[in-house]
Every structure is written in structure tokens, then in C-alpha cells.
């Protein structure tokens, strides 16, 4: 009960309240926000349509992957339903040489980075210990250890400083991760070295089954100034606002202004993962409240009000989503089984004679089963 009270305080950790940057309301109305309007002045109707398509496509990727898990094709999947705007808005603000360090839920950010769809699923299918080459898309593979990626991002950003480059490291994490020591340490170092890193916190209200009010009695964004890091609280279901605040933070980092903390106030509308049942700990009314603030619906309403939501557009978006879903499914089902010797890959970045010897031994051991040689050597 006490938690409820905290939640209901305007501007409390859960409630969008004072100081929340919003450019498009839940009803789809564009509202002026002088400090940020200029940052998105270039986002015309076509660009907004592009953001909308992105959000539809990633929602479809998410639902298709969830279905694949239910069909036994994936071991697990962490849905991002409801967080599309926070991830697409920030993800689309990045330059290709910026580097992303994310948790396991930022599949929409990975989509923005141009990840191969099949690569998203490798780990969740149990076919590989990581999904992609981080340097191919300048995004590290998802971090499962809560909050650890913030340290990696800060370290990377310190490296950028040493290189004299103007790329920015962006790290994504949730409200629960802010209770982790790693995140706090990362913020201390980021501030100390004025490293070009953006802490992008998606406050989705639930750290698995713990409500945000349990861990944060004030808005999470309020913590950052204590570290000497400027922060901003943005409506995480408003893709345009997320784009604007991320651009602002990027500009600050590129110009030597150091780190920024962004709290995107959003909502995890689905379960923590496919192995979770939120109905056991979450009030259905809360979900209903947030469904009314759905990031897709509001952009839909906004585009519609500007005459940008005609049938041709929706049909094209649907076709794109269908194609992506089909590609994702085909990539999942067609994924080759890993070879036993794959475990030796990616251990060292350079050849290692000791490891090569082990691999050689292991392969000779496996070949001693040549009679029953089948693909199930891995089981």
C-alpha cells in the first residue's frame, strides 16, 4: 500500500509528472517544447512515417519471436512490447560510428543498428553463445548481467576520449539496473572523466516483479545530478521526444560536454520474459492505463491528423512487417545446428596454440564415434 502512495505522487518514480519532456501527447497532439523543437525540426512527415514503420516492424519482430518461443523454437525471449518508442527514438538518433551497449531487451535498437534478423535469435535458440560481431554494427551483443554494460560503455567512451574521436557510447538499461553497483560505478567514472557516454534508462516500471517505487522514491533521473551528470526525464512512449533528448545528449557528448542520463518513462506491457507471468504481481488496471499511452497508437493518431496515415501507407507498413516476420521465422527455423567445435571459437581474439591443441584432441575424440556419427554429438 505504501508503495502505491509513492507511485501516485506526481513526478514520483512511476508517474509521468512535472519535468517530463513530451512532444506528442497520448492523443497524438504535437505540443510545443521550445527547448527541444529545434532538435527535431528536420523530422518531416516522411521521417515520422519512417519512425512509425520502425515501431510497427519491431513490435512484429517481438510478437513473432514470442510465438516462436511458444512453438518450442526459442528457449526464451524477452519482449519489448510497449518500449518501441524509447528504443526506436533513441536508436534512430545515433550515428553509425556511435557504439551501443545494451541489455537483452533492446532488440529494437539492434534493428536500428542494422542487425541481421537471424542474429537476434541465435542466443535465444541456444545455437550460439553470442549473436553477432559487435564491430560489424557497432553494438555489443546483449548483456545479460544486469547493468554490467554500463561499465563497458563508460570504458569505451574513455577510449574514445583517448582517441580524440567524437563518437559516443550509449548504454541501455532498466529501472531495476539503477540499483546495481555497476551502474553507479559507471556513472562515477563517466562523470570523473567527462566521458562521452549516454546512460539511457528505460524506466519500464517493473524490475521483473518489483515495482519501480520500491527501488526509487524519487524519479530515477534525479539521481544523476548527484553524480555530476545532467539528466532529463522524457516520455518514453513518445518517439519524437526520445529522438530529441537523445540528439541533445549526443550533441553534448560530441562537443566535450561529457555524459548525460536519460530516463525514458515507459512501460513493459508484456512479461519480463516468456517464462514470466505478470498477472501474478501486476494490477490489470495499470496495464490498461498504459495501453492508453501506447507509443504506436499515439503516432498513428498524430499521422492521421496530418493526413499521413492513408491506406497505401498502412499497407506498405504491413507488407514490410510481414516480410520481416517471415524472414525472422525462416532464419530461426533454418538456423544450422552448431558444431561441437564451435565452443572453441571466440575464446581468444588471436590464435592460441594451447586452445588449438585442445580443439584438435576434442575433434579426434569425437571422430572416434564415427560409426554413430550423426548430428547429435552436441546433446
Amino acid at each position, binding site marked *: 500500500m*505504501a508503495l502505491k502512495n509513492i507511485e501516485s505522487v506526481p513526478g514520483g518514480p512511476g508517474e509521468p509528472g512535472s519535468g517530463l519532456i513530451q512532444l506528442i501527447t497520448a492523443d497524438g497532439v504535437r505540443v510545443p517544447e521550445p527547448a527541444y523543437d529545434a532538435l527535431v525540426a528536420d523530422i518531416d512527415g516522411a521521417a515520422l512515417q519512417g519512425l512509425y514503420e520502425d515501431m510497427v516492424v519491431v513490435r512484429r519482430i517481438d*510478437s*513473432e519471436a514470442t*510465438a516462436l*518461443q*511458444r*512453438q*518450442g*523454437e*526459442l*528457449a*526464451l525471449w524477452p519482449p519489448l512490447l510497449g518500449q518501441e518508442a524509447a528504443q526506436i527514438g533513441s536508436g534512430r538518433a545515433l550515428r553509425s560510428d556511435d557504439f551501443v551497449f545494451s541489455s537483452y531487451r533492446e532488440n529494437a535498437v539492434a534493428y536500428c543498428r542494422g542487425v541481421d534478423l537471424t542474429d537476434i535469435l541465435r542466443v535465444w*535458440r*541456444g545455437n550460439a553463445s553470442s549473436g553477432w560481431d559487435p564491430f560489424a554494427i557497432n553494438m555489443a551483443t546483449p548483456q545479460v548481467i544486469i547493468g554490467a554494460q554500463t561499465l563497458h560503455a563508460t570504458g569505451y567512451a574513455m577510449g574514445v576520449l583517448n582517441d580524440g574521436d567524437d563518437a559516443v557510447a550509449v548504454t541501455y538499461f532498466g529501472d531495476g539496473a539503477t540499483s546495481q553497483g555497476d551502474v553507479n560505478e559507471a556513472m562515477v567514472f563517466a562523470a570523473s572523466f567527462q566521458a562521452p557516454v549516454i546512460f539511457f534508462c528505460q524506466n519500464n516500471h517493473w524490475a521483473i*516483479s518489483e515495482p519501480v517505487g520500491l527501488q526509487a522514491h524519487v524519479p530515477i533521473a534525479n539521481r544523476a545530478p548527484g553524480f555530476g551528470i545532467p539528466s532529463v526525464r522524457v516520455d518514453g512512449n513518445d518517439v519524437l521526444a526520445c529522438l530529441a533528448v537523445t540528439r541533445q545528449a549526443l550533441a553534448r557528448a560530441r562537443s566535450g560536454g561529457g555524459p548525460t542520463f536519460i530516463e525514458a518513462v515507459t512501460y513493459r506491457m508484456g*512479461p519480463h*520474459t*516468456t*517464462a*514470466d*507471468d505478470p*498477472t*501474478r*504481481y501486476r494490477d490489470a488496471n495499470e496495464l490498461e492505463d498504459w495501453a492508453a499511452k501506447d507509443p504506436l497508437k499515439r503516432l498513428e493518431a498524430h499521422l492521421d491528423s496530418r493526413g499521413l496515415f492513408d491506406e497505401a501507407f498502412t499497407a506498405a507498413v504491413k507488407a514490410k512487417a510481414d516480410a520481416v516476420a517471415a524472414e525472422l*521465422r*525462416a532464419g530461426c*527455423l*533454418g538456423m544450422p*545446428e552448431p558444431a561441437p567445435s564451435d565452443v572453441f571459437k571466440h575464446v581468444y581474439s588471436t590464435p592460441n596454440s594451447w586452445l588449438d591443441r585442445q580443439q584438435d584432441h576434442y575433434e579426434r575424440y569425437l571422430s572416434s564415434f564415427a560409426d554413430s556419427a*550423426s*548430428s*547429435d554429438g552436441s*546433446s
Partner: protein
Amino acid sequence: MAGVIKEFRLPDLGEGLTESEIVSWHVAVGDTVELNQIIADVETAKAVVELPSPYAGVIAELHEQPGTVVEVGAPLVSFEVAGPAGAPPSTGSAASGGDTGAPAKREPNLVGYGAAVEKGGRPERRARRFASQLSGGLNPAGGSALPGLAERAGSAPMIEAVPAVPAVPARPAFEAVPVAPVLEPAGPLPATPVRTISGERPRSTPPVRKLARDLGIRLEGVPGTGPGGLITRDDVLAAAQVASASDGVGTGGGVAPASVISSPATFIPAGAQDTARETRTPIKGMRKHTAAAMVASAFTAPHVTEFLTIDVTPTMELIGRVKESKAFAGVRITPLTIVAKALCIALQRNPTLNSRWDEAAGDIVQFNYVNLGIAAATPRGLLVPNIKDAQELSLLELAGALTGLTERARAGKTGPADLSGGTISITNIGVFGIDAGTPILNPGEAAILAMGAVRRMPWEYGGQIALRSVMTLSLSFDHRLVDGEQGSRFLADVGAILADPGMVLTMV
């Protein structure tokens, strides 16, 4: 051209689950389904989830009925899909079991839990650990006390299942480590979730957890009095006292049937440890909690039970008339509905029954509202969810509230809020065909009313003997704060309403 039959086997829907229960089918044989169309609701130990169809095609066979518990990897549904040319590439997918009749080469469980689920042997994570402790501790040389278990533990460290090991050797393993594991539930959860009430591990601190472990107290059953429900050292010590008290006296007195109807109560059959002639179930979890609550109630509040047998024929006739009235169309009206209403009315005249003895504060708390607890048989066992502010509800609203409460309870969805804050309870033992009992108070409440079965019996009516509908009411009350006079008046009032519903006019 006839299509190809594709069999879909039950996948592991959570992380490392071995079985699921089919809640309902959304499709029937012959239905055409699209890819990802929801075909069934399935309940695992973790969640109720929707199953999307893995194929576009026609349902050829549903292999199991709703209510069946299906093992992961067992056939669930067969689809007839378009010919081989158009077959999706999932045909050979190992994870879903593919479409061959041959045993799947890889286990359906993807996440590395790796348990080979042998017939009859359910995964048993704890047992294996005990086995390895035993083999390591008592038989350092990997001796022969438990050859089967020890060998498996040693040779296959990743396998968490105890396959079909004879049950007998498993017993010594538990006895050798008498302290129950307190931090996690043991492996084989029943198909219905039992942890829904608490939802999470009880809050406490490591020293308190250690104390509980040393005393053999399961924290799940200990009410926490610290901030935010934190279980304190004193709570554990109190629970230990209650437990030892119950050892002495708990089994003696002939406890009435109604006694089980209190607090969160459930009984989990622990099938894994059966021996040939007797079954031993560790006293823990909900059962332990219930026992502690019962002992606390029975030996703290001096119980008095009174009985009243009445001719409820007019009430039964009233129910018949109400059912026919338009306002009550489709509403479930039963004797319980009327008894609940009568109780609320009688409480207005006898508020003492709706109170609580607050020992700590030295106060008697009289509630000016009625949170009416109803004992309900649920998948988790017997629970007493309550209807908030029942005194404010009309008969129609009360009927709706009772139906909602019952349905939630039956569906296993009774929430913690439903279970807390009760002020008085009704237990309907009549549904079991029982006439009367001496119900034990729901802890903290001053009264509980048991309603017996409505029987057609020869009864005095109009100076003659006639066949009438007769019911016995049993009322237990806490004699510390309710005197015989007040209890009797209350029971008489309830009886008077049931014997002649028109008497309400004289009471309100």
C-alpha cells in the same frame, strides 16, 4: 491432394519446465488455422500462456483433452498442411519434435537443464543435491549406500532429474539431511501454482534465514511483523514456539470438519517420496502455515460453539421466487447467498460478533464494516477470501460478489487482497452433505458460521408433521469478547430470518 500431417509436440514453455496442463482448446478438429493463430491456453508451473499455431493448415487431431497434464515432448496437436513442396522448413526442427514418429533425438528442453524425462520419474532437483551431499559426505569413496543415486550424481553432474530410481532409496536421502531446504521450493511443483499467494520469497535477512533453517522453520509460513512484512528474528522464534506447541497438542482434539477452513490452506501431495505402505510428507509450506494458524486460533481464543436447527422452507421458496424475478436473471442465488445476507443483517443488531481481540494493544476492535470471509475449495486447497464491505451490498450485489469470489477461487486467482482483512466468516459444509460442526475461528475473527446441508426432513409444521427443508447452523465464537447471550441472539436472528425472511422487516 491430401496434405501432409505435421505433429506439434508440447515445447518447454518456460525455462526448464517439463510439463504443462492444457487449460482449453481454441480450435476443434477440422478447423482451418493460420500461422500464429492462438490454438490453446496452456498452464505451466510458471504461467498460463497462449499457444500460437506453428503451422497454417487444418487441425487433424487434438491429442489431449483440457485438464490433462502433458509432458514436454508429447504430441499435442496434429495439423494437415499443404503438400511437401510448400512445407515450411520447420519440418526437421529438433526443438518442436518435428513430424516423425521416432523419438526426438534432442530433448525438447532447450535451455541446458538437460533433464532426460524418463517415464514416471519427474525432475527432482533437490533430491539430487541431497544424493550428492550424501555420497560426498557419508561415502567419500563413492560407496554403496545409494549406488544408483550416487553414481548418477557423480557421472552426470548436469542432469537434474532423478530418473525412475526406486522410491525407497530416496527416503534415506531426505532423512539424512533433516533440515528442510528453506530457500527454494522443491523441484516438482504441482501443475497448479501454489506460490501465488506469497508470490515471492518471504522477506527476511540472512541471519534470520539461518536461524529459521537451524530451527527447521519454513519462512513461507511465518507472518512477518517487521517493516514491509519483513520477517524478524522474533517472528521466527514465535513460529518455532507455535510449532513445538502443536507437536504436543495439535493432533489430539477431534477437530471438526470445518477446522480446515481457515486461512490460506493447501495440501500438496508429495508423490515423489512414497514408500510402499505409508506416505510421509514434510510439514512445510502452506500446511505448516495452516497448522500454525489453527493452533494459534484454537488455543488462544476460547471457542464456544452453538447449534440451531431451523425450518428453512420459506427461504428455499424465496430463492425460487427471486430466481424468477427479472432483476436476478442469470444470477446465482443459493442458500449461501441468503445466509450471507442474513448474517450481515443480524450483525447490525449484534455487532460484538464482528470484532477482534487485539491482545497487543489491549483493545477490543469492533468493525463498523463487514468483510465477509467465505471458505472456498480452490486448486490450492481451502482458502477464505472475503467480500469487502459486505454490509453495503444489496442481495443482488452480494450474489454477484459471491459468484466472483468463488470463480476467482476456483480459477486459482484469489489475490492476497482477497485473503486479508476478513472480519467474520461463513463456511458452507453443507455442500459436502454435512449437518453441523465446530468450526475453528479464522485467526483474528470473533465468529464463524457453518451452514449445514439443507435436508428434506419430517418436521413440525402448523401443528402437524410435514416434510420440510431443514438446516443446522453452527456458530463458533471467541468467548473472550462475545458472551453467550450475544452469540445466542445473533444465531437466533440469523435463524429467524432463514425461517421467515419477512422477519427482516422487524430488524432493519
